[in-house]
């Protein structure tokens, strides 16, 4: 498989796309998915994140650790930039469905529709879904 995106700086070949489809707090899916983003970036891979379905709720600002005492995912999301993970995408339909406005978000993902999502899946060497 070939990537159409240029490999930046000293990053190694092998682009990773993480598809995040679970809301924070209710399960560990989101957190354990984001852990891979950090590890991938630490290993100098180019990592992109696609927030789909309930996953878009992870981007809402103003969240804390929550009643269950688990660590929230916000600190991890805020760390992404430091790790050069800045390719963020959010499913446009999901944002509409959950009435999530861009002004409500902690980060600034690119809104993507079905065609763009298909392109993302096609143009990454490794796609992992959480």
């Amino acid at each position, binding site marked *: 498989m070939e990537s159409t995106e240029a490999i930046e700086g000293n990053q190694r070949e092998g682009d*990773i796309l993480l598809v995040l489809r679970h809301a924070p707090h209710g399960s*560990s*899916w989101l957190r*354990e998915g984001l*852990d891979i983003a950090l*590890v991938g970036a*630490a*290993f100098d891979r180019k990592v992109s994140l696609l927030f789909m379905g309930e996953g878009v709720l992870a981007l809402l600002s103003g969240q804390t650790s929550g009643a269950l005492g688990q660590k929230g995912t916000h600190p991890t999301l805020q760390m992404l930039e430091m790790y050069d993970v800045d390719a963020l995408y959010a499913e446009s339909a999901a944002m509409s469905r959950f009435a999530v406005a861009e002004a409500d978000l902690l980060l600034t993902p690119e809104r993507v529709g079905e065609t763009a999502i298909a392109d993302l899946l096609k143009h990454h060497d*490794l796609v992992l*879904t959480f």
Partner: protein
Amino acid sequence: MRYAILLMGAPYSTQASHSALRFARAVVARGHRLECVFFYHDGVHNAARLAAPPQDEPHLVDGWIALHTEHGVSLQVCIAAALRRGLMDQREASRHGKAGYSVEAPFELVGLGQLVDLGLDCDRLVTFGP
């Protein structure tokens, strides 16, 4: 072709582990190379050495071990996902001051970087989850 499996479902709770094991058998039966089964999320419970299912049910843990013994498939368990779920080998147990241990060879506790490398090195990484 060189395959790897990512298993994220707990044994006996959902179909994921049973399907993954059957898929693993099918891969090697077709003459492909199965490099590794990587256990992540609730899939780490597949590495529990104390699993004692009723005798008239498939023994998943023994199934993975047989796959390793017969075909040299490595069985890698994410250490962070395992530790927080009470799964650890003798070394980690003594490091954490625990009286017993729950994971033993041929299962190995490894970092998530292994999953990233595996996903990019193998021709196919097939995920099984709930």
